[in-house]
């Protein structure tokens, strides 16, 4: 890694050696795991949600969405919070903080009433946590007084946040659920209750697959299944959307955000940072590939920063926000007509099929030569470009201005690595 690049960031007044944290989940629920992840280079963790009692979990508890040859496009789990009691967890946290004083110990907590929230806040503060994350967002709790049922209710979020703030001096982060239309509403509740930041997203309520012989969802737990949380690469677009919504709300714009959802590469990390996240949390890709993925996240992020002349994360955090605008404000004065490199074209005809059946019948496909030609019916939707199996064969070409529209400079999409 380059010497000039600094990946550290102060988040809520806590110094983090890098922005990469494990999100609260089975990737960080005991001493050995967290010690190993710290040794490999993670900046901190949000310790697996601590409740009053340990949970009683089902088996099996995972399912995946697979797409031809790519396992784990998305991941579904039916787990709840920590299987240990709060006393057991407090001991582990104390020992970790002692052995790794420079690493950041966020601790996720979840209570079912004022008293439980207050107790957990006090005890985890005492155990040596650096920040508290309030889990208002687990979608598969066996109690409706907990998890995303609470997180969908701005009043309850405000109330429990306030209770926690009254029982700790630590920064408090409210973890929000994506199972809602306007994530801004409960987030404002958290802000009123005194939250120092929000984190999002937790998992999305889902049924990934149906077992068509057992007539239930997957995973099958003794012939039955439940709606439960979906995470991993597939949810990144939804996470980015919620983060943009939070950061663009005038009331919430200054509330720091910790970004979660489908982060797997440095490139994903940069995307969250560009939308204003100041801290990054990861679970599913760690479950799939292990803690070691942080090595390429850190190195890749540093390489990106070096190539762009950034020396600290704050140089570019939030830089993409001004360019995410309402649909009605987009420049609609032109069409970018794709061009086809006939030397590269292998003559599969996929562009023509998609353009006809899903577009504007703008590609003539010569069945003798097996070569496509784009006609003037093309509207520049770029379906063909996304469908073509050959790298760099169909690319954005000429810019055509619509009738009556003044020609002007048009900024094009940057094709990094397809």
């Amino acid at each position: 890694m380059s010497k000039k690049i600094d990946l550290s960031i102060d988040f809520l007044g806590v110094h983090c050696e890098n922005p990469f944290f494990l999100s609260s989940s089975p990737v960080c629920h005991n001493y050995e795991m967290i010690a190993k992840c710290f040794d490999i280079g993670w900046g901190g963790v949000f310790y697996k949600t601590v409740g009053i009692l340990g949970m009683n979990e089902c088996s099996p508890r995972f399912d995946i969405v697979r797409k031809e040859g790519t396992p784990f496009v998305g991941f579904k789990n039916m787990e709840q919070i920590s299987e240990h009691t709060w006393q057991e967890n407090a001991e582990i946290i104390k020992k970790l903080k002692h052995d790794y004083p420079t690493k950041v110990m966020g601790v996720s907590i979840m209570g079912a009433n004022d008293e439980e929230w207050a107790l957990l806040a006090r005890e985890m503060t005492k155990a040596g946590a650096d920040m508290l994350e309030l889990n208002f967002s687990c979608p598969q709790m066996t109690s409706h007084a907990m998890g995303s049922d609470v997180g969908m209710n701005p009043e309850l979020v405000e109330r429990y946040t306030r209770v926690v703030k009254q029982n700790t001096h630590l920064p408090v982060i409210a973890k929000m659920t994506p199972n809602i239309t306007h994530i801004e509403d409960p987030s404002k509740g958290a802000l009123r209750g005194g939250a120092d930041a929000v984190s999002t997203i937790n998992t999305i309520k889902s049924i990934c697959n149906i077992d068509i012989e057992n007539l239930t969802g997957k995973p099958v737990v003794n012939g039955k299944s439940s709606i439960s949380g979906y995470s991993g690469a597939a949810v990144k677009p939804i996470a980015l959307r919620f983060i943009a919504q939070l950061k663009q709300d005038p009331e919430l714009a200054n509330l720091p955000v910790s970004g979660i959802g489908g982060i797997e590469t440095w490139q994903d990390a940069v995307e969250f940072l560009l939308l204003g996240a100041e801290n990054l949390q990861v679970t599913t890709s760690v479950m799939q590939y292990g803690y070691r993925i942080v090595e390429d996240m850190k190195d890749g992020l540093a390489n990106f920063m070096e190539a762009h002349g950034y020396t600290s994360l704050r140089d570019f955090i939030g830089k993409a926000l001004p360019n995410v605008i309402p649909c009605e404000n987009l420049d609609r004065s032109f069409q970018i007509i794709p061009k086809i490199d006939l030397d590269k074209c292998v003559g599969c005809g996929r562009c023509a099929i998609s353009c006809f059946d899903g577009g504007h019948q703008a590609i003539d496909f010569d069945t003798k030569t097996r070569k496509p030609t784009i006609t003037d019916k093309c509207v520049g939707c770029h379906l063909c470009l996304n469908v073509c199996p050959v790298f760099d064969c169909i690319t954005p070409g000429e810019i055509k201005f619509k009738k009556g529209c003044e020609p002007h400079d048009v900024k094009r999409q940057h094709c990094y690595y397809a």
Partner: protein
Amino acid sequence: MTKVRQLPYGEPAEKGLNVRLVMEEASRCLLCEDAPCSHDCPAGTDPGRFIRSIRFRNFTGACKTIRHNNILGASCAEICPQERLCEKACSRCGIDKPIQIGKLQAFAMEQERLLGLKILEAAPSCGKKVACIGAGPSGLAVAAELAKLGVSVTVYDENEKAGGMLRYGITPSRLSDEIIDQDIKAVESLGVKFELSRRIDKNELDKLVAQYDAVYVGVGLSASKMIPNLKGTDLKGVETALAFLKRARIAGGKIEDLGRVVIIGGGDVAMDCASTAKQCGAKSVYVAFIETLETMPASKRELDYIVDLGVPVIPAFKPVQLNGEDHVTSVELAAMEGNSKITLDADTVIFAVGQKVQDDYKGMTSDGKIFVGGDLANGGKTVVEAVASGKDIAGEIAKFLHI
């Protein structure tokens, strides 16, 4: 229609993978724990690690891993016999076929070229000076490893360009000047200096030994062997493999009048002579060797390559004499078993029957300030093994110099 492949001199023999195919290939990788592929790279290039970087889109990181571990990473990507090294060890063999590790490495090195990445930089000086004789694979590796420790290194070579066998013993369709230059540039970026077109004989060697804190002799096996007592090897039109490959490389493939070519030898160098002769416009090319197809030393990949180019091979025949008055006109071959005989008309006969050390360095071993390695010490192996040997010797030299 001809089934024979036409490939102009110097055009790449194999196509590289574009970024999309690279991502597909990298996602086939099982990202093994304690990766077997990494264990089986002689030079410790660590494919398990750089493939993981590619998989997680950290292409620059992949380049760093390769460069730090193997100073000739770009060349090795092209010419390593991966099928009997890293790819043979690949866990994915147990599912279908191995990851194309060489191709992924070539892609990473292509990124280094395209993005103009400067990965290595000169280390602060430790005050020691070392000379390397021979700018071939092992000399370059020794030079790079020592330079990383802050040693001031000068590399001497008799040829006009650095690279040794990389440049003059391999045909450019398999290893282009561009890629060799990329590796040399990496060596130079560490502050290593080159004195080219400088032949170091015994006499000069003594001077260097006096001048430097240590001298590495990595002159390789740069003289060609001949079959002893074979009648007609002094005729015009008879030459050795290295002389032929070198003159083809220098002339950019423009050598005329090869006429009908017969190549004697069954190793990779013989295969390279065959493809080169074909690409230089020889009227016909035959390759004959004493081994069988099973026991010939050339890799299957090399044999397939020349067969694709339409070169007939004659296994299990040995040359018995070369005919001609002043210039060679034919070669007589006899079967290793039985009584079959073949006479091939020939205007050019190329011997690729192995290499030996130049007379000046015959029998030389490490002694005092002098360190001997590479092909000279191990009797001629692959480039990646020369890099490995170079890394080891650099370690010995560093110990000797107390750094």
